[in-house]
């Protein structure tokens, strides 16, 4: 079959140029845009929000704040020599965190930073979103609730940042591609955190009786999932920052408005009252990384330095609850560190719930508040009150005999002991306590000759590079 050419002569000549041009033109028509199939856009939250998205973001503050929680407990636990992570495949848990020489370009030296600031960025985005929210989505009280919740979390995140670094930026609500925010000192970071918590309290006072979102399991467990409950949590967190900066009068004032309670027939449950980071094993949820895997190890001094209980020869009940021998009495060793102890805490002994990978990590709880009050009373001259609080914790949580021999001089050692065992492997308190009392050199040459515990983590490498400094620390 012949395909005849019917177009002749000059018309044929004129055929070619449009055909060629048509090839390029045809390439220009048609819509080929494709959406993001996998995630919602941040523009939706910032510029075009609705109640559902705001609520999900508010819950997300817990989610992004908890990303770091396990690592925070683990790394600061190693710096405080309560714990070790002896992993053959990753020896930097020893060669950096135990040695003391932290490399800002690795996970050990540069960690505990990005996720916290991610949480702060989410918080700031929520605050902007509330400004762009259409009128009928959330009531004024509900909006204040979200604001209060957000400011409280931001304050908590900055506190954690201040705990780990000597320098950190605070004015980070800027364009992400602009010049990095200026570095502030640790004291300035704590001051900023206090201001955020106070501003959050003002919001919570106007927040009505309920939040618009479902507070997560770690908050609802002890009934803190309402504005009234969060106000108490807010004041507790504020008291903690005051303790870290040494403002003891302020500690007492804020604790009075928190959820601190010392009923006469107190139990372990009383001690556990508080708010927690929740974890879960469901699809899309996050598991508690402190529970799994053989490399986790506890320091042997926890055992040898534990006091004995009231009756018989048993060790401090807090030790018995939280630490045990490895299976078969095996010893785990790496690079000269040897220990046969492992934590039952989080695994078999959760604060609540069934344990395992859904085990929660405390944000702040009653036992810590009571110890804070003990310290503040001692520091402001109320020694009998301080001793009462200390013994309250000793007897209920540790099952130890109350101390009758305490004076202003030996109170500090007693306090350090109680805080060490009560708050073991919860939030780096061993390290923080020794540091704020200027006693970090007690950890020198432990467990091996040449080891020491540094004052702070270095500024992460990426942060240094972005500020134009490229060497191994800035």
């Amino acid at each position, binding site marked *: 079959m012949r395909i005849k*050419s019917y177009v002749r002569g000059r018309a044929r000549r004129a055929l070619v140029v449009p055909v060629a041009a048509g090839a390029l033109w045809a390439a220009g028509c048609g819509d*080929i845009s494709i959406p993001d199939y996998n995630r919602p856009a941040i523009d939706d939250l910032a510029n075009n929000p609705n109640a559902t998205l705001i609520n999900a973001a508010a819950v997300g503050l817990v989610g992004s704040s908890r990303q770091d929680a396990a690592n925070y407990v683990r790394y600061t636990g190693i710096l405080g020599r309560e714990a070790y992570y002896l992993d053959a495949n990753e020896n930097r848990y020893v060669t950096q965190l135990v040695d003391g020489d932290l490399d800002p370009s690795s996970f050990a030296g540069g960690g505990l930073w990005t996720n916290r600031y991610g949480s*702060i960025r989410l918080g700031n985005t929520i605050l902007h979103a509330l400004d762009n929210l259409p009128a009928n989505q959330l009531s004024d009280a509900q909006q204040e609730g979200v604001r209060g919740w957000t400011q409280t979390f931001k304050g908590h995140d900055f506190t954690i940042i201040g705990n780990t670094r000597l320098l950190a930026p605070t004015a980070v609500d800027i364009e992400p591609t602009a010049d990095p925010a200026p570095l502030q000192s640790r004291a300035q970071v704590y001051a900023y955190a206090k201001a955020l918590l106070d501003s959050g309290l003002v919001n919570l006072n106007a927040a009505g009786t309920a939040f618009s979102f479902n507070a997560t399991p770690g908050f609802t467990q002890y009934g803190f999932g309402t504005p009234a409950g969060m106000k108490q949590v807010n004041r507790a967190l504020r008291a903690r920052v005051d303790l870290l900066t040494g403002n003891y009068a302020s500690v007492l004032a804020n604790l009075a408005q928190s959820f601190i309670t010392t009923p006469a027939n107190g139990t372990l449950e009383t001690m556990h009252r508080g708010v927690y980071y929740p974890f879960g094993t469901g699809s899309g949820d996050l598991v508690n990384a402190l529970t799994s*895997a*053989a490399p986790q190890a506890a320091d042997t001094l926890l055992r040898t330095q534990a006091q004995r209980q009231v009756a018989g020869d048993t060790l401090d009940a807090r030790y018995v609850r939280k630490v045990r021998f490895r299976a078969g009495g095996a010893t785990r060793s790496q690079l000269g560190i040897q220990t046969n102890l492992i934590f039952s805490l989080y695994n078999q002994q959760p604060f609540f719930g069934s344990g395992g990978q859904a085990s929660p990590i405390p944000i702040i709880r009653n036992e810590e508040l009571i110890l804070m009050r003990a310290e503040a009373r001692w520091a402001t001259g109320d020694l009998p009150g301080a001793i009462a609080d200390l013994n309250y914790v000793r007897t209920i949580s540790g099952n130890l005999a109350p101390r009758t021999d305490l004076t202003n001089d030996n109170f500090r050692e007693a306090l350090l002991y109680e805080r060490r065992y009560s708050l073991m492997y919860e939030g780096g308190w061993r390290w923080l306590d020794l540091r704020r009392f200027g006693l970090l050199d007690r950890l020198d040459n432990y467990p091996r000759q040449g080891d020491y515990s540094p004052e702070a983590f270095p500024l992460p490498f990426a942060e240094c590079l972005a500020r134009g400094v490229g060497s191994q620390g800035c």
Partner: protein
Amino acid sequence: MFKRMFWAAFVLALFGFASPTMAQQRQVTGTVTGDNNEPLVGAEVRVAGSSRGVRTGSGGTFTLPVGSGDARIRVTALGYRAREVAVPAGQASVAVRLEADVLGLETVVVTGQATEVRRQNLANDVAVVTARDLTDRVSAQTLDRALQGKVAGATIRTNSGAPGGGAQIRIRGPSTLTGNATPLYVVDGVIVSDVAIPGGQNAISRANSAAGVNNSVQDNTVNRIADLNPADVESIEVLKGASAASIYGSRAASGVVVITTKRGRAGAPRFTLSQRFGVASISNKLGARTWTLDEAVDAYGDDVAEYFDPATGEALQTYDLEEQVFGREAPQAETNLSVSGGNESTQYYVSAVFANNQGIAHNTGFLRQGGTVNLRQALTSRVRLNVNSSVQHSVASRGITGNDNSSASYVSAIAFSPSFFSYEPQNGVFPRTPFTDSNPLETSMLSTNNEDVWRIIGSVNLTADLFESATQTLRFVGTGGADYFDQQNRLYFPPTLQLQPFGDQPGTTVAGGGNNLNLNGNVNLVHVLEPASGVMTATTSAGIQYEERDLRLQQVTGRFLLGDLDLPYQAANQVAFGNRQRSKVLGGYVQEELLLLDERLSLTASVRGDRSSNNADTDQLYFYPKLAGAYWFPWTNSYLDSFKLRAAFGASGQEPLYGQKYTALTTGNIGGIPQVTVTGNIGAADLRPERVTEFEGGFDATVLGERAQLSVTAYRRNITDLLLSRGLATSSGFVTEFFNGGELQSTGLEIGLQGTPIVRGDFAWTSNTTFSRNRSEVTSLPVPEFSPGNSFGNTYGGYRIAQGHSPTEVYAVNGLDENGVVKVESIGESEPDFQMGFLNELRLGRFAMSSLFDWSHGGLVINLSRNYYDAAGTAPDYLMPSGVTEPRDPYCGCLSGQERLEYEGTYPVYVEDGSFVKLREVALTYDLPGAWLGNRVSSAQISVSGRNLKTWTDYTGYDPEVSNFGNVPTGRNQDVTPFPPSRTFWVGVNLVF
């Protein structure tokens, strides 16, 4: 009047049309013979300028209708130089003798979607590898391994020694920093997928703590070009840069590999059978330390005394753990069958392959089964249809190797085990090792890790001659095709293993993988003008192309298994992930190719414009021009037979990856309550493709009576608007931003020397030697220097993008500065200084011997595996030599393990030189004499061959060719307990009947 004539002549010169003339016809008969006067069957004879012709039959005879006046006929045959012969009016018969095409100058090279050029006229240095050099001599499991050492300018490196695929082809150095690092693959006109889908190994190895689909590049992934059967390939052309590949637009920045599968030939059905058997074994071991009683007790405590004889202080028994885990002599078998044939209007090629290649560790190996059908049919005298289809099935079991954080990786478990402890089972029970968290022999024998892929590639090509005259032809060429693959990964790690990455949820199983569909089509018009005077040939072509890719990934991980259930859907704890990536590209082009001055001068100009859905503005067209020329000099002297000068300039692009332009939130839930969190990546609002411009120039000189050719090519490539993922100050809440900026420049040199230098009677020596070198530099970087991810920090050695430096330089700690602070600086380059390939074949009568040596000089490798052995104290050179009490000079290259640990963090003790010479292929073949064959078999050949037989290197790890992170733009050459390399011996027979 004059102006009109001038304009008409101008247009005619480029595009001219004229009405066809109906000339009178006569018949010309003749014969076509080859070098030694043997008749050539199937040679094509046509009137010069026409695309239609006849083929010679048996005896090499033909009959061709030509015009009644003086005529010129053109005769071509595969493997011979083309010839044009004048047939004056009145002459009715002609005898044509063709010369063998030793240098492959007649090979036709694809230069666009619808056009081809003879290699002789090519203005670019396009590498062509034919089936003969690909797998005819030595078998290779995948196509990329078959190409190693054979393409100048291409660095082809495997990522580990695991069976199956997993290799990276990098052409002329790094071509992007964050984009798609692999070339574009086109098979019979269909753009096929080369993605690498993580298989879910991360659920066991926990190498990447952020566990999600496509989040772990450390899953020892296989890029999907491994699915193609190398035995089906007729030829591969590698378009090395923008100056050659410009026509492919914004997918072509990393080069284009054009694959043509085998076609049928007219004639009686021809069967071929290739059957090979082989055995593979481990080719390099690291060794281990011998312990004394005191040393062992020091390191491990008193419990290990039971393994020692207290009298002598020696171990009761020493075990070679590498032998226990990787000591299998693994059998290999491969069968390839094909039949081809046809007549003048129909040609077919049908093939099947069955391959079973076992690996050196238990439960590892690579199986392949597949079939291909290629059909060519002339529907009418003017319309031709080609249909190519292929179905391939492969199963790859690669064990667990590479980086891990759970002691799952076989080599990392071996590293932490002292040599006095055995992994072998006693009475069927595997010992639990107290030294690490897994028994790798138990893991390899009792666990499953399979990647099962079905792949279907089909293409249809229609060519229609719309118009034809004595001087012009116009034809339509359309191609449409689809490439679909379905990858299923199944992992099963029973609860009885010592290895349990999540101790309180024993047993892990993963069902993962994904599927991908590539659809593409193009329509083209090609017009050829060949005036009777023969002054020129002008080919004008224009076309439109549409391409779509859709990749869906999914993975379900189940933990806490009961009994023998090995699917995740019954596990007590299940986690599901998934993800979809889709993109579309729409483009068009116009191209003009001119052959002038007796076909000695060729000029090409083209423009391509395309739009992609991955750009921020999907309506914006980006244009990529090209200009190229080549000229054969008319003079020759006694030394030089011909000399061709060529130069080419072209532009192409690299589109952003799917998702880079979005700034998104991450969803999740807390105990079932939905949450969104900030994800960490921002996409720039004006994200656009990278732009590559390349200038390439060179010459080809043929000598020795056209039996040898020297090619020299130099190129400079400039990439602007690089897609960069820059690290932000993480205090902003975000980690990275995707944006365009910066400039990368590569310059290099490629030299090839090929031919048959010695031919004496029965003896012939054919040689192909290539040399290439490339230097890259980031010439402009608008942001602070940053680490491109995928490394382990400066202590061991990492990478950094910095202005004035190559993007593949290794940065590491390098001593103390004057203040006692550790310096971090560039200590060298990870890409080789230069590479050479030596392919030689000696033929004497019926015997032939060929070899392929691959020499890579320079290039650093970061050897983290050595750090594992040092930290464990099991390195064979762990102890400081007696008499040495202080660590010696850190750069002496003589350090013991203890000294390296001392220096770790201050000196780059784990970065080593990765130069190597590898004997990649050796083959000995013998063609059986015709008398021994019956009358059914027309030829038979037996062969003995080997692959990867020997490596000469100073590198102390398994293999200097390694990449823990798989195929990445930068970040190769990191050695973290990979699968060891193996050598294979083959014995085989090829039959044609």
